[in-house]
Each structure stands twice: as structure tokens, then as C-alpha cells.
């Protein structure tokens, strides 16, 4: 276990040390202490290492993560796990807005609640939120899954493409072109897998599924020749 204390080291030194593991991996277990809401912690990692951040993280923690397993032992600021490609990011507390924005792959787990725009422009990653999500979650989300064990705020899934959304609690309102869809066996199976991977103990059959009505995929067909 390698410990980096941010009261003695800079964020630059932390990230450089973690990036260096891609060239030559000398340590698989990392712990970051002295964390006081610093921004850009453990961003751009590209190696199968574990990083435990002992405190609250600022913006973009674990941004563009590949392969690494990153745990925030506290709350996370805006854009946690943004554009992650693979690996796993877990926030033990709450996450601010745009959690998992544009993420292409991997798994993001929020143990608490997530703010507005959770999973905005999601591109293939899976996000599991044990609590609630804020308004405009999955706005323009393209692929991947969002699982909400609590409630969802206004305009869920607005302008959605192919992302699947599973919500156990209430949905305050659905966004444009987002509709409730049938939970078929394949969806129960997919949700079961997602919950298992996230280590969340919930009954998959108590969730509802939401997806795109695909009415906004093309402008009015009658006028297609005029575009």
C-alpha cells in the first residue's frame, strides 16, 4: 500500500505517480489522505490499480478513468467519473451534478444521492445510484444504463437515445421523448447483473424501465426531402 498525503504532496504529484504506473506498475494499492475537496484527483488513470481517496473529492474525480478501481470515501464534486472508459468508480457519499457525464464504459456506483444531470450524454457506461438522482438525469444519453434505487427528479431522460434507465422509486417527470417501457425478462436479467456488479441488494422486479420513444430521431419525415 502506497500512501500519498495531499497535505505534503500536490495533486500534480499524485496524478503523475498514478500515471507512472501505466509505464511500470510498482504498486497496486494506493491511498490518498489529507484530501480537502481537491479537484481532479486520480484523473486519466490507465492501469489496474486501486485508489482509495480518504475524504471529499472536488470536481472531476476519476475523470476519463481506464481500468482503475477508484473509491471516494466521502462526497464527490461535479463530474465524478466523467468520460470514464472502463474500471470502477465508487462514491461512498453523495455525488454532485453531472456524475458519470459522457462515460463510455466501466461502472460508476454512487452509494448516496446524485445531483442533477447524472449520466448526461452517457455513452455506454453503467451507473448505479443507491439514492435519488436530480433533474435532467440522462439528458441526451446515448448508450449504457442508469439504475436509480431511489427517486428521479424532473425531466428524466430528456432527448434520450439508446440508454436504458431503471428506477425503483418515483419519477417526478419524464423529459421529451422518454417513456416508460415494458420490463421483459432480458431487462430483469440485465438489471440483476447491474445490481450484483454494484453490490446493491434490491429486488429487480420492483423497478420500472424507461427508454426513448425514438420520436425525435428524425425531423418530420414528411419533409425529409427539404432538409
Amino acid at each position: 500500500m502506497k500512501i500519498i498525503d495531499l497535505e505534503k504532496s500536490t495533486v500534480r504529484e499524485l496524478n503523475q505517480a498514478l500515471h507512472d504506473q501505466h509505464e511500470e506498475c510498482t504498486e497496486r494499492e494506493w491511498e490518498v489522505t489529507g484530501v480537502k475537496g481537491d479537484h481532479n484527483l486520480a484523473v486519466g488513470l490507465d492501469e489496474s490499480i486501486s485508489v482509495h481517496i480518504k475524504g471529499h473529492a472536488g470536481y472531476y474525480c476519476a475523470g476519463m478513468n481506464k481500468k482503475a478501481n477508484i473509491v471516494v470515501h466521502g462526497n464527490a464534486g461535479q463530474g465524478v467519473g466523467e468520460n470514464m472508459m472502463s474500471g470502477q468508480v465508487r462514491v461512498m457519499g453523495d455525488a454532485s451534478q453531472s456524475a458519470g457525464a459522457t462515460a463510455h464504459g466501466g461502472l460508476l456506483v454512487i452509494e448516496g444521492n446524485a445531483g442533477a444531470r447524472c449520466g448526461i450524454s452517457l455513452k455506454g457506461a453503467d451507473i448505479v445510484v443507491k439514492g435519488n438522482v436530480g433533474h435532467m438525469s440522462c439528458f441526451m444519453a446515448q448508450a449504457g444504463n442508469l439504475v436509480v434505487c431511489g427517486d428521479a427528479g424532473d425531466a428524466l431522460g430528456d432527448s434520450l437515445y439508446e440508454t436504458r434507465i431503471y428506477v425503483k422509486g418515483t419519477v417526478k417527470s419524464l423529459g421529451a421523448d422518454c417513456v416508460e417501457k415494458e420490463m421483459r425478462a432480458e431487462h430483469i436479467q440485465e438489471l440483476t447483473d447491474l445490481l450484483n456488479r454494484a453490490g446493491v441488494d434490491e429486488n429487480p422486479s420492483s423497478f420500472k424501465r424507461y427508454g426513448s420513444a425514438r420520436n425525435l430521431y428524425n425531423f418530420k419525415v414528411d419533409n425529409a426531402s427539404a432538409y
Partner: protein
Amino acid sequence: MSDKDLDVNAGLRESSTFDLHSMAEIRRAAETGIYDIRGFGAKRKVPHFDDLLFLGASMSRYPLEGYREACNTKVTLGTRFAKKPIELDIPVTIAGMSFGALSANAKEALGRGASEVGTSTTTGDGGMTPEERGQSKKLVYQYLPSRYGMNPDDLRKADAIEVVLGQGAKPGGGGMLLGQKITDRVAQMRTLPKGVDQRSACRHPDWTGPDDLAIKIQELREITDWQVPIYIKVGATRTYYDVKLAAKAGADVIVVDGMQGGTAATQEVFIEHVGIPTMAAIPQAVQALQEMGMHRKVQLIVSGGIRNGADVAKCMALGADAVAIGTAALIALGCNHPKWDEEFRKIGSAAGYYDDYHEGKDPAGISTQDPELSKRLDPVAGGHRLANYLRVLTMEAQTLARACGKNDLRNLEPEDLVALTVESAAMARVPLAGTSWIPGQGF
């Protein structure tokens, strides 16, 4: 005798307000119920660089000998924070245009042409293709609101990163790529279903203002270990304030794109009615940087309607460090070429007028994803034409700089310019020719 002359002789009078184009637009809107979408940039006449003239040297200034006395064209971009700034042999770069909007051959040709003369190309709203990375010695990777294809591997392969807040053709609007051009490969790169009308977001998904942007830029620097320059691109509107905020947010380079800048697909009403002319934006940007003590420390690239070496020289005289070209580069490749006129007419256009880039039917094989049409552009020959054109732009700009006694294009200054019209004098902040009057700055 033209049709117009006949009309006049017959006593017919066209309304200036309801001219024939406006009437046709009203009919089109009434028939289709949808706004017009097209490519290209603003077609309306706006004050432009043609309204400026250089004051060549004579008694009070000393000219340089053409061809024999050096006039430097090299420029280094990203000297503020990046460990590896971009060094360009000429101050003319290729603006961001996406694979998707353009064919793979067109992207490759842009890379070949730019590399041949030692300048950079830029990706677009569709990620980085191996073709353009392979053929571009210096490649700027755009970081757009859509984040299509965005990934840390390509980010680290880039020679610079351009955070795009907007573009001159549509400041405040997101990208658009209609279903006709969303082929399997384009769809896969953008993680979208094939054939959808793709509407990119107009705002970034994970930051909302200049303070957030400063943190976002830090993140991009951290991911790339502070190696490469970070540009911020804005469409020209409130340029004075936008440039100040961009510099404060930590940009190495600021790109200002005027309203004449092109697009692959946008509502016509947006293209023609939003933004300010390139010439009007430059003095605002330069003033903002000068007030912060950042002029030349944060480099300024301007784009939007640049066609010839005079335009390049005038941009630089007003204080730009480099320019970017998009539409002109496509024309050099063969866009709107008269040899395809018959085919342009078959699709309801004509050579020189074609702007339906969004339809993907470009007879010149540039703004298309059709494999047969794409073959019409040979990327090697196209690249060479672009290189020729870039050389001419540079030589023309050098000719003007030497005439003004400058041994470096960046030594050109506003004092070398006068304006032909009151409007251009006010916008460019140079005196009306033959006077010492700069409108707005007293007598």
C-alpha cells in the same frame, strides 16, 4: 441583356424588402413547415477585410526587399503552460471540421496538405480518425459539448486540445449532422443509432461557467501531464468579455471564429443572424488580452471568411498570432468546383452556390459519406492543392509585410492599416483612409 434588365425595361420593380430571395423563403417555409438547414457560412455582405488597405512604406517607412530579405512566418502556439508548444512554419492553420461532416478522404487530404507546409489540422465533432492522425504531423483535438468519441488515448495522442465553446457560424448552437450522413462508421464513432438526425448539445455536460472551465482545463492538463497546449474556441459575439474569461480560465491559445465561419449544417437563420464579423472581433480580442498583459503570451487565432494572403496579413496586423481556414481549404480541395456543375444542377444547386453539405450528396466528394462520391477526391492530389494554396496565402502575406517594412508577419500592426468605409474603420479601429479619424475614438 439579362433577365433583370428586361424586367426593368418592362417597368417591373423588385421590392428591396420583399426581394426574390425573401419571397422564395416565405414560400419554402409555407410549403414545408420547417426552417432551412444548410452548410457554408454567412452569405450576406458584412464589413470585411476588403474594406481595409495597407499603407506601404515610402519615405517615412523603410520597405524590405521582396524575396531577398527574410520575412518570418513561423509562430509558436501554447507558450503559456504547455511543455510542448506547437511550432508552425506558417501562421495559417486548418480549422476544426469533423469526420462525418467530411469524408475520410477529405480529412486525409487536409492532413496531407497541412503537413506538407508545416501547419496543423483540427479534428471536429466526431472524434479523431486514424486517417487524420496518420496524415497530420500536428493535430489539434477538439473537446466539444457532444464528446463524441472522446477518450483519453486520443487525448494523449493530440498535439493540442481545443475546448470548443462555440463557432462563428452558430455561436450558442450545437452541432448537427443529419441522418443521411450517419453511416455505420460515423454512427459507431459517435455511439449513435445509424440514420438518426444527430443534434449535438450546445453546452458542455459537466461545466457551466468560466470558473468551472478553469477546473476543467486543469483536468485536461492533469490527464495529459501538462504536455500539450489547451486552446479555447469561441464564436465571435461578446468577444471582449469572452476572451478575458478564456484567458482567466487558463487557455494557452484562444481561437475566435467570426460570423463568416462555415458549418456543415445549421439553420440558415442562425448562420445569417447571430455573431459579429471577424474583422470586428479581432480588435476586441486584442484589447482584452492587452488589458490583461497577455497579448502574445496567450496566442490569438482568428478565423471566419479568410480567403487570401491579404486577409491573413490584415488579421495579423490587427493583432492575431495566426489564422485558421475552413471553407477556403475545402474550396482548395475542390468544393464547389465548376467541373461538377452539371451534377450540382441535378441536385438543385450550381457550382459556386452549393451549400447543402448536410445532405451528403456533394458531387465533389468532400462533404459526403457516400463511398462512390468520396472516391472523387484523391487525398494525395487534394492535399497537394491545399499545400499550394497555403503557400500562396503565406507568400501573399509576406509580400504585404515586406512592403510595410516588416521582417516578421507578426510585426504587422494596426498602424499599417487604413479603412475604406466608416463601418470598417469603426470595427477594425483603424483610421478612415486619408484621415486620422477612427470612429468612436474622437477627433
